[in-house]
């Protein structure tokens, strides 16, 4: 099977959908000729024209609000938000308007909009360009949240998002744009709310999101050499969240670590760990451990930045202690 980069996968998804449905358009900063700074949308303006690939001024609340209004009146916009950190700028349009319009109108108005943005640290981009803010968005009823962990998910989840009639926020890990993965030719739609068991195991469950799936897989390799069999699960979407797959796994292994690049406190790991505790309590042979990014603004210096995010070695260390039945106080 062919291998393509995550960037190409996203490009393909957008192009295929725009060919299929002419109400879809792309809007954001530098999305046209420049193809975004990450060179993801290159080639699209040449095929679809400036009517459908629209460059905006640096006015995030403005073009987000415009996208919401366009979505309410028959268009299907894909909004490109250059850095996930800028979500804070568009919160009113995203959370007060887009998320709530269907509900506040008693089901009469829809907002079929996709917001594509990114996450992930260790790029030396410092505190305001390195955040992973999916937890903040997942907290708002009315928004769906997808987190592709490879080129395959990037294409399949984006296409599903574009066809969804709800506002969907997709977070791509900005460090993965050049990573390749096997992506089949032809139509590829990955459903929301279905987790993927990436590696089977029997001793411990590792739930990871986005690039943390790769971290978990590397940890699983190391653990396997020590005779510990780890199962790796990629939820793929946070809203909706597939707890059935996660619970089945935890009930099999009775131990779990949840790994995510959002901050340690009050985030995705806390939610998933809580749900596992509630739903699989009597099957747990140890506490569910959360591993997120440190509760610090992401530092610039490489010496500091790299220690703020979970690593395979870190996961392995926690897994060993869980297997040994030690009391772990992560806090």
């Amino acid at each position, binding site marked *: 099977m062919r291998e393509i980069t995550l960037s190409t996968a996203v490009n393909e998804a957008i192009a295929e959908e725009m060919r299929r449905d002419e109400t879809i358009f792309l809007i954001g900063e530098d999305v046209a000729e420049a193809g975004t700074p990450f060179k993801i949308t290159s080639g699209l303006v040449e095929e679809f024209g400036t009517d459908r690939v629209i460059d905006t001024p640096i006015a995030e609340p403005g073009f987000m609000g415009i996208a919401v209004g366009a979505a309410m009146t028959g268009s299907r916009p894909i909004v490109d938000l250059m850095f996930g950190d800028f979500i804070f700028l568009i919160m009113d349009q995203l959370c007060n308007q887009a998320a709530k319009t269907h509900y506040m109108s008693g089901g009469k108005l829809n907002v079929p909009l996709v917001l594509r943005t990114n996450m992930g640290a260790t790029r030396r981009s410092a505190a305001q360009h390195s955040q992973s803010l999916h937890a903040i968005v997942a907290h708002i009823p009315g928004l769906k949240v997808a987190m592709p962990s490879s080129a395959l998910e990037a294409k399949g989840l984006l296409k599903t998002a574009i066809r969804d009639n709800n506002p969907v926020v997709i977070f791509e890990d900005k460090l993965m744009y050049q990573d390749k993965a096997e992506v089949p030719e032809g139509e590829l739609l990955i459903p929301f709310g279905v987790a993927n068991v990436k590696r089977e195991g029997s001793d411990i469950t590792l739930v990871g999101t986005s690039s943390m799936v790769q971290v978990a897989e590397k940890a699983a390799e190391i653990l396997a050499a020590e005779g510990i069999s780890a199962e790796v699960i990629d939820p793929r979407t946070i809203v909706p969240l597939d707890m059935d797959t996660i619970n089945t796994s935890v009930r099999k292994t*009775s131990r779990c670590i949840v790994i995510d690049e959002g901050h340690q406190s009050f985030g995705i790991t806390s939610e998933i760990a809580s749900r596992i505790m509630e739903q699989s*309590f*009597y*099957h*747990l*042979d*140890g506490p569910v451990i959360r591993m997120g990014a440190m509760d610090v603004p992401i530092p610039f210096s490489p010496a500091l930045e790299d220690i703020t995010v979970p690593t395979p070695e870190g996961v392995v260390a926690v897994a060993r202690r869980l297997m040994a*039945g030690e*009391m772990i106080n992560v806090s």
Partner: protein
Amino acid sequence: MSHDVIMPALGMAQDSGLLVSWFKQSGDAVAIGDALFEVETDKATMEVEAQHAGFLTQVAAKSGDEVPVGQVIAVIAASQDAAVPIASVAEEQPPQFAAKEDALPEGQSIIMPALGMTQDTGLLVNWLKQPGDAVSADEVLFEVETDKSTMEVTAGVDGFVAALLAAAGEDVPVGHDVAIISSAKPETLMQRTRGDVPTPAAAPSLPATQSPVAPPPGDLKRTEKRQLQPKSSRILASPKTRRLAYERGLDLQKLVEAGHVQPYHVSDLAALQNISADTPVSIAAPALRRLTAKISAVPFGEIMSFVSEKSSGPTAGAVISGLAAGAWASGGSDLIVAYRHFSTTQLFSNPHGIGLGKALPDQANVEAQLLINDLRQSAISSIENCSDGLPTLTILSQGDQFSFTFECGAGQISADAALSFLTEFAGRMEQPLRHLL
């Protein structure tokens, strides 16, 4: 067509307004926009205008009244013929109290609620509403003290307190009436104590509207003091371990006793399984102590022959129990011995463990602490595990020797005491005269 004049909504946080003064009198003609009355609010005094034209009638509030928002305080009638005036809010006479023997006022009965599985009565601590007060369904009406804590009980219905049927400090059986709430403001009120009524008022059954309210979190400090059961020391184990142990009938306490380090995980269950397999499950068969001794029977035989020639001499039982009591370290208190010879059992009392035992009458209501099985003349040559709970001393004859077997439960007598007892007894039986005198 007539229109109500109401106390209008006045601002976001206000529930009532103070009516300062009327600009129109009952019977006056009013036009739309005329100022009718002045209201004082948090911020200022404002005028309320007439929304309809007509004649002002049925003025039901006067200057100085605090009127709830939304309440009708007058009517603008189409014509001047006034309708029946309604009672003014403030001109109402204070409600009268009925005599305690009078019939109960109309309304919903409020009962002492069920408080817990073993409780029949609740101590009514205090009332939070008084007769005549308005009350809403989820307001607290009274507080009850139970075994464990003080609970708040809500009214359960909207209305006015028409009667209180128990006083603070009284015990009220569960299900009995404690109050009556009427839907309209009552004209007569009643306040009684349970002491006023010789017979209970209502059958104990819970109406659907009322349920006791759990003490709010703020009360936790008060209730904690009343906890009776002490906290047991917890065993730390994972939920899965506990569940599997429960399912398999295993007791985690055994792991603790066996010295396994906590917290316990599923992998510890294998060890627990082994421990449980070793110890049999039955409660009976405690560990037994068994001691034997042999002495020459001759000295005792000579004494007994000498004694039996005398008509009033002591019996063998008295002698043996006296010697046994002397050997028993009973700290100077009485040792009751059951002496069994052939098929009869005689109780002997041995105060201070000195001298001969004193035979007790058959009806004596005492528990023996030591059983002596005198099998000297029987054909039994050895026994084992033949005690039925009491420490048992068996005397057997073997030629010209006595064989003593002493058996007792490990928990009844310490090893040292058992050794000491049998040694002493054997010694005394070898030189009986010396110890009896």
